């Protein structure tokens, strides 16, 4: 089975997941993103790399932040951007996912940026494009179910590399709802691929996927154990609907045990950075003092996110 993300020359055809993506390609994306971050500080923020191309933001699930950053990234590359909130249109009328895709292909789409509530939806679209011989159309996964959010994972790696320079001597902790998190899966895939020697996941066992060790991470139940001497703390968002029920008794208890406070952060290395994919639940997974503190790099993450997405889209658009 060929890696569905690569074309027959081994180049990036779609960006669907970081799990199984070759290290060279991940590094190349990060390298390519660097000039785009510098460009963002210029007066004229546009490059003609995707001029004349149509990028369809195909969002089957609501999102403001991710969609906006993709839109900015595409526009800075001079692409035409069309935003579609499909959750409110065609699928309600019974149109299948692939029918929607076929219709948009007929409108000369060059790239789809897809967010979907079901794991694997972007793979399905990529496969369909391949089966129908439309190899010139690219798919970027902007988050599918619990599966993957590769551009988030990449911007997180960019952020870590920016502040820590090298991956080979780091200890990284991922804290929170790993079970339902596509962000965590992409982070774990990227960190292990880039050679981070120790990746820990910290959460109650109800929020940890089965056989998580097989993904190359260590499980820690408590922050005391898990945050000790780490270089990077990556917080995850806890969805409201999971705060009270059979997974967790209450947001208060969660905050008490797993919320990131200054006290707990003191267990990490003094120069540790704190990351969060946003949007944050202050007082649930992270204390405001930490979120706004000098170790937090949450806003640089957002800025780098645009550069990384420009890098991905320009690479896809170049072949």
């Amino acid at each position: 089975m060929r890696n569905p993300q690569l074309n027959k020359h081994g180049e990036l055809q779609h960006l669907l997941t970081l799990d199984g993506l070759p290290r060279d390609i991940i590094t190349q994306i990060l390298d390519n993103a660097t000039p785009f971050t510098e460009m963002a500080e210029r007066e004229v923020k546009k490059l003609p790399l995707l001029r004349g191309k149509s990028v369809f933001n195909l969002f089957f699930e609501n999102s403001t932040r991710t969609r906006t950053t993709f839109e900015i990234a595409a526009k800075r590359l001079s692409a035409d951007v069309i935003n579609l909130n499909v959750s409110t249109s065609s699928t309600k009328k019974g149109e299948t996912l692939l029918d929607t895709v076929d219709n948009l292909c007929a409108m000369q789409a060059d790239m789809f940026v897809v967010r979907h509530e079901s794991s694997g939806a972007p793979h399905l679209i990529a496969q369909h494009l391949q089966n129908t011989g439309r190899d010139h159309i690219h798919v970027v996964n902007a988050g599918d179910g619990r599966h993957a959010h590769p551009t988030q994972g990449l911007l997180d790696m960019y952020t870590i590399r920016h502040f820590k320079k090298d991956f080979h001597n780091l200890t990284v902790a991922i804290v929170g709802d790993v079970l339902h998190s596509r962000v965590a899966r992409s982070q774990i895939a990227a960190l292990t691929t880039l050679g981070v020697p120790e990746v820990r996941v910290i959460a109650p066992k109800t929020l940890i996927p089965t056989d998580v060790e097989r993904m190359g991470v260590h499980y820690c139940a408590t922050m005391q154990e898990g945050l000790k001497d780490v270089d990077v703390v990556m917080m995850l968002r806890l969805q409201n609907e999971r705060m009270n029920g059979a997974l967790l008794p209450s947001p208060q208890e969660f905050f008490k045990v797993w919320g990131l406070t200054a006290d707990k952060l003191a267990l990490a290395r003094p120069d540790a950075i704190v990351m969060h994919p946003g949007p944050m639940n202050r007082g649930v997974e992270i204390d405001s003092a930490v979120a706004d503190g000098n170790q937090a790099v949450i806003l640089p993450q957002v800025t780098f996110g645009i550069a990384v997405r420009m890098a991905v889209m320009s690479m896809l658009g170049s072949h």
Partner: protein
Amino acid sequence: MNIHITNGRLIDPANRLDAQGDLFIADGKIVGVAHAPDGFTAARTIDASGLVVAPGLIDLAARLREPGFEYKATLESEMDAAMAGGITSLAIPPDTDPVLDEPGLVEMLCYRAKKLNRAHVYPVGALTIGLKGEQLSEMAELVEAGCVAFSQANVPILDTRVLSRAMLYASTFGFRVWLQPLDPYLSRGGVAHEGEVASRLGLPGIPASAEVVALFTYLRLARQTGARLHITRISCAESLDLIGRAREDGVDVTCDVAAHHLHLCDMDIGYFNPHCHVVPPLRSQRDRIALSKAVADGRINAICSDHTPVDDDAKQAPFSESEPGTTGLELLLPLTLKWAAEHRLPLLEALARITSDAAKIAGIAKGGHLSVGARADICIFDPDAHQLIDRSMLKSQGKNTPFLGLELPGKVRYTLVEGTLMYVSPP
């Protein structure tokens, strides 16, 4: 019409027969094995040189989708598939629409099937009305209408007292209760085996405990009620131990496995292949190997196709939104032969799992063997021929199978039902 099948290798597991020999058919029945009865003249001779002559296969789970889901498949299309697959008897789960919970419906299904005059149909009636798990169905009446057993298909009964009473009521008559072990709460929302693969792909998992917990309940209630229990489609290695222990305790329990579970595991989901979305889910490699061995040594009594034709639209969706199921009538024999070859199991033993052993479970006396006087349901196949599984060769309306593009052993050449030649393979 009198038919003489000549030069074939007769394999009849029920009679422990595996020998070169001829078969003689008259009036829809087998009238001679190896020796022609006095005065027999054949109107037609079938040359079975190099071919195996076996009893027509018996499939313990084939959804023909009628009534209710004719856009997925019809009796006509699926009967054609059964004939091409050498299957002459089909047990039909009750999860049609409406559910097979009324004698009139069952009679209608049997009548429609009989009119088509292809495979014999053995409906499995609903254990409770509408499969809702509340009110018992009219089991005695349903048996009179043609049902051979009672089941909940894939819909578990939530109320264990109702389940216990349904089993007790069935045991009054000695009716067999077929149950699919799946705890509704532990499996809720799940689409794949809970393990490394589902974790990586972000697919909601169905833990092995969902099967084992339900199975324990069923076995315990069977012991209490004396019900004859048949466990359908086991998928976990751990279930084998539980069933083994129940048998030691004297519980009358048989079980089957779906043919695809002998060859595939969760890793085959690959990049979200919706054809691998099945119920119960494809389990781990360890489970697959344990199931495969258990069929070989007879702890699992039968292999079935769990035939579930699904239309393309329902399959071409993201994995968890795709409709579960796989088409299987035309793959039952090839997958059984492939499994047997892996275990170097004699054909006589392998074919038992899809003929005589399955016949016992479904209570089919007239078929599943080649005795003189038996119904002349015959499957004649070439065990050495391989064929490529692709959409065009599948007669079933459902083209949904993870085996598309693979070459599998075994090619059915002739299928006879009650002495009538119903299928001849294209050359």
